[in-house]
């Protein structure tokens, strides 16, 4: 098992380098002097000799591969460049935004799983009933109606029409920072995010369970005399979860995209909004930092998915 995990990490390394390389290429595709992307405000405005030295350090007049290595060095130092717009280190801008995004996307995924998987299972067990068709239509709507439109409709219904929930932001201005206040603001955006994510989860869970139920070993279990529910729970459920871990992992980029849009629509102060603001202000260092972080996160979650699959499926552990 350990050997398997180590192998997965080793395979991930070239992909990681590739991500970094692509980001680096993007840095250089940008109009303007790359130095302005990579150096801090003090360095840029300070002593010209110091500036020259830093430029040499970054190898800006040397061949690209050298620059790449220097750039990697800066990364490891924790230097993500400085924001054009606000003239502060990018790390400073990212810091306070990370938690809100994690809270939002985390709740979104959890809710989607908590509702999606059981619905999918129920649909598979009640195949071709009204419930099954209804869940099928629901899933289709979930993936077909644009995320932002679902957000707008949610705001209209719950915020404007019914007046139950706030229409945006993470906290009520001027109010004490209670958890209750946070939850009130979180419900709508997380809810819409989960609605968007749920469609695929329901479909894949249903399909996976149906596939597993047709397998030979299920017939064997029935032939042994295992009761129907026992068959589903003991012989089908765990087997059907295995492909789902892959689905979850691969859906991460979609999750991130959804989060960006939801943060925008609900003015949620997370990394997604930061990126959009960055794009509108051409604040490349910010954009690139977010791009890179999310790509690395995706890689990380893929690894987690692999590990989970190995736990669930003994055949993979070799």
């Amino acid at each position: 098992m350990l050997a398997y995990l180590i192998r997965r990490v080793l395979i991930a390394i070239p992909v990681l380098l590739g991500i970094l390389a692509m980001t680096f290429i993007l840095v250089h595709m940008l109009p303007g002097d790359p130095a302005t992307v990579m150096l801090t405000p003090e360095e840029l405005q300070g002593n010209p000799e110091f500036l020259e030295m830093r430029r040499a350090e970054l190898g800006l007049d040397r061949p690209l591969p050298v620059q790449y290595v220097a750039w990697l060095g800066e990364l490891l130092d924790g230097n993500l460049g400085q924001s054009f717009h606000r003239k502060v280190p990018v790390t400073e801008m990212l810091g306070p935004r990370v938690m809100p995004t994690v809270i939002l996307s985390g709740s979104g995924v959890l809710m989607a799983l908590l509702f999606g998987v059981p619905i999918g299972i129920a649909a598979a067990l009640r195949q071709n009933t009204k419930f099954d068709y209804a869940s099928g239509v629901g899933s289709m709507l979930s993936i077909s109606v644009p995320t932002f439109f679902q957000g707008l409709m949610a705001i209209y219904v719950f915020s404007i029409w019914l007046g139950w929930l706030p229409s945006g932001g993470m906290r009520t201005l001027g109010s004490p920072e209670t958890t209750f206040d946070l939850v009130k603001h979180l419900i709508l955006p997380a809810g819409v995010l989960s609605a968007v994510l749920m469609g695929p989860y329901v479909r894949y869970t249903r399909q996976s369970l149906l596939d597993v139920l047709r397998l030979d070993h299920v017939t064997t279990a029935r032939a042994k005399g295992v009761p129907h529910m026992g068959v589903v729970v003991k012989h089908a459920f765990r087997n059907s979860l295995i492909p789902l871990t892959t689905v979850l992992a691969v859906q991460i980029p979609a999750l991130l995209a959804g989060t960006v849009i939801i943060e925008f629509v609900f003015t949620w102060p997370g990394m997604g909004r930061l990126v959009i603001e960055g794009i509108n202000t051409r604040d490349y260092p910010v954009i690139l930092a977010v791009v890179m972080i999310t790509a690395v996160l995706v890689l990380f979650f893929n690894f987690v998915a692999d590990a989970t699959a190995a736990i669930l499926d003994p055949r993979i552990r070799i």
Partner: protein
Amino acid sequence: MIRDNGAPKGIDAEAIVEAAIASGEAAIEDLDIDDSTMSPPRSPFKIAVRRFMKHRLALISLIFVIFIVVVALLAPLVAPADPNAVDLSSIRKPPSGAHWLGTDSAGRDVLSRIIYGARVSLTVGIAAALSAAGLGTFLGLVAGFTKGWVDMVIMRVVDIFLSFPSLIVILLLVAILGPSVITIVLVIAFFEWPTSCRIVRQMTLALREHDYVLAARAGGSSNFRIMRRHILAGVVSPLTVVTTLLSASAILLEAALSFLGLGVRQPQASWGGMLNEAQSITVLEGMPWLWLPPGIAIAATVLAINFIGDGLRDAFDPRQTR
């Protein structure tokens, strides 16, 4: 095992591959004519068409999409007004006899903008899907057929692309390169090709070991001919499904881009762009005609395309799991 490939959420890559292989096998068996039976041989294509016809939802969706395409093509004839005609005297007016869906913030006729907006969405959707599928198929064939390190390199590249948060990078690229329809199409295609690449590669890998390919090789056919006839034939069905579903994704992406203000530039009408106006609470609250029509238009079109994709997948899939 089911594997999805990220952006187009409705795609079940591996199942499509298995289904296509199975239907290919079924096709081969179907061709084995037996004198003692009474059933006539049917080509797999005809079987698929028949099965598609049975899927009522897919059929209705197909008609709907054709309708939208026709409307888009005939926009100048169908639209009641010039979509860009600004009339500052009647801003944000509710639906009336003169303007069936009211007017927007610059006094333009909403209905006409919806009709012209279809052009943008459909163009982007179809063009991006076809380009992505084309590029993906080519690379997938290469990867599957040559195996070895070329394959490894391509697959690592695919992994890298799939790790990237495509929306953000697309936004970035469109911001840098400028928002024209062509740019958007190319950028979307640039990020959607990995899906079809994976599928085509899997099909190629599976099919090249298949008996009838081995037989063709033994018979002396050159690699290229084999690739063309047998493998392309096997790849067509999953590819059709994937391309259809890709176009749904592309339309959603374009709408998101326009909504965020980074897509097709005003004054050109685009469904996503029209929804941008709904950012303000006043519009959201009191002027449903400004944001409901474009939203519903996108949802309906994408829904229809997804149903068609589902129908196609069912049509090509001989397994009866659904």
